């Protein structure tokens, strides 16, 4: 079943640059959908539409619809706070907030008014386990989060999103700054997480795209070139441009 349906979405930044042109795409529930393609193709812009984080940037004109469970989230009346709880995000560079490890994890819950210690503790442990970080940090939850290594920080960021029990997780090149071992850990977490969550990943390489994709969408200069089953797309691409990119002839 499609969790998100994008209908002829176009997006233009206020300086006139066009970022997305007439994108239509269905995003399957409880699976990893990979948005890949060369830089500047509009993948990040699309991600940021899905939790309305583009509200913060100098956008723009947006047209089209994005239906999340049948509701158009681009509607100005959409409650963005509730939306962002449902649609969590992990950024390319791990940004830990200037709090303790635990402080980072409970931040999202606290701003929505959760005060019960038991609920917060439960969320801390659950989310850290989901992000495969629990064993490494369980004895030092009150240490500053910046003391963690880069790979740990990025898994903490993932855990921080998971603490809110979102339905969709957006990941924008989450492993671009990580070593192969940390990258492997994050990818392993994603395999586990897709049983419960709808995951949309902008990978940092074609290899990662091929490794993780249940479904894959190839973006080129703001256009959706090809979309389909991950295995199918990476072994037998229909469009020549997709094939050339996958085989490394450009990019």
């Amino acid at each position, binding site marked *: 079943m499609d969790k998100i349906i994008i209908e002829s979405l176009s997006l233009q930044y206020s300086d006139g640059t066009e970022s997305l042109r007439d994108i239509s795409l269905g995003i399957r529930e409880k699976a990893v959908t990979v948005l890949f393609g060369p830089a500047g193709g509009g993948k990040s812009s699309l991600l940021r539409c899905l939790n309305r984080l583009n509200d913060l940037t100098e956008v723009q004109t947006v047209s089209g619809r994005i239906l999340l469970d049948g509701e158009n989230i681009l509607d100005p009346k959409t409650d963005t706070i509730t939306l*962002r709880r449902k649609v*969590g*995000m992990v950024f390319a560079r791990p*940004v830990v*907030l*200037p709090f303790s490890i635990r402080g980072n994890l409970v*931040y*999202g819950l606290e701003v929505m008014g959760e005060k019960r210690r038991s609920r917060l503790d439960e969320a801390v442990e659950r989310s850290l386990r989901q992000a495969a970080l629990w064993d490494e940090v369980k004895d030092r939850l009150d240490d500053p989060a910046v003391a963690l290594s880069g790979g740990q920080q990025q898994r903490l960021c993932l855990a*921080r999103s998971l603490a809110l029990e979102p339905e969709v997780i957006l990941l924008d090149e989450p492993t671009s700054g990580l070593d192969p071992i940390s990258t492997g850990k994050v990818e392993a977490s994603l395999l586990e997480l897709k049983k419960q969550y709808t995951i949309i990943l902008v990978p940092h390489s074609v290899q990662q795209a091929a490794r993780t994709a249940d479904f894959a969408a190839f973006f080129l200069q703001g256009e959706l070139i090809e979309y389909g089953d991950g295995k199918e797309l990476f072994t037998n691409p229909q469009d020549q441009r997709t094939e050339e990119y996958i085989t490394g002839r450009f990019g």
Partner: protein
Amino acid sequence: MKRTFSLNRHLVQRLGFGLITLIALGTVIPIVMVVIYIAVEGGPAISWEFITGFPREGMRQGGILPAIIGTFYLTLGTAVFSVPLGVAAAIYLSEYAQDNWLTRLIRIAIINLAGIPSVVYGLFGLGLFVLFLRFGTSILSASLTLSIMTLPVIISTAEESLRSVPQAFRTVSISLGATRWQTIRRIVLPEALPGIITGVILGLERAAGETAPILFTGAAFFLPRLPGSPFDATMALPYHLFVISTQVPEMPFQIQYGTALVLIAFVLGMNLVATVIRSRARARRQW
């Protein structure tokens, strides 16, 4: 040939650096000399009675307690008005304001406010607070006048420290479902606080040492008792120093320098607090 040329270049560089270092050191000389001179001249005047007593014999003897207390009240009063206003304005400018003509107008106003001579503030305070609003010559009028003078300092340093908080913190906070205000209150403001406090202290320190703005708005030549309410006039250290240096014949030098020493200690003490806060925050900073 080449060798001597490169030697020369080294020599020129060393001379240049030496000169620059000397000039930099030169900036330290005036402040050190002022402090030493005043400490030597005024030091002997400092006694328990000088700090805690009232002036006697037409201010030629006794202490300066009413002036110390007065300056303390004025600084406090200035803080009450200028800190909330200044920090609020800085939050608006840094976090909410769009770049449009209104914001630019506000910024130009702030810059120009900082350039106005302090005596003009005094006259303005006299017109607005003392006469028009009928607050009289009082701590209230003087504090309000000093507040206006202090605002630009507080606003610009507070805005600066708010802006130095990484943008990524805000984006992450919003993406976790926080409102803009929650983001400011829980992340941006705490991170910027040491810088804001430093700016506040530097602003207040200037207010504490000013004479002209309080001249017409709240300062008294001599009062036999301490001020009892914000509507009373008050003695103040800078004005008292002005008075005993120019208006009182046969004034013992020691008392003048003693008063100057107390004023300088007051201001440098605030400076020290600001420095400690800043360096502690820097050591604690995690990004």
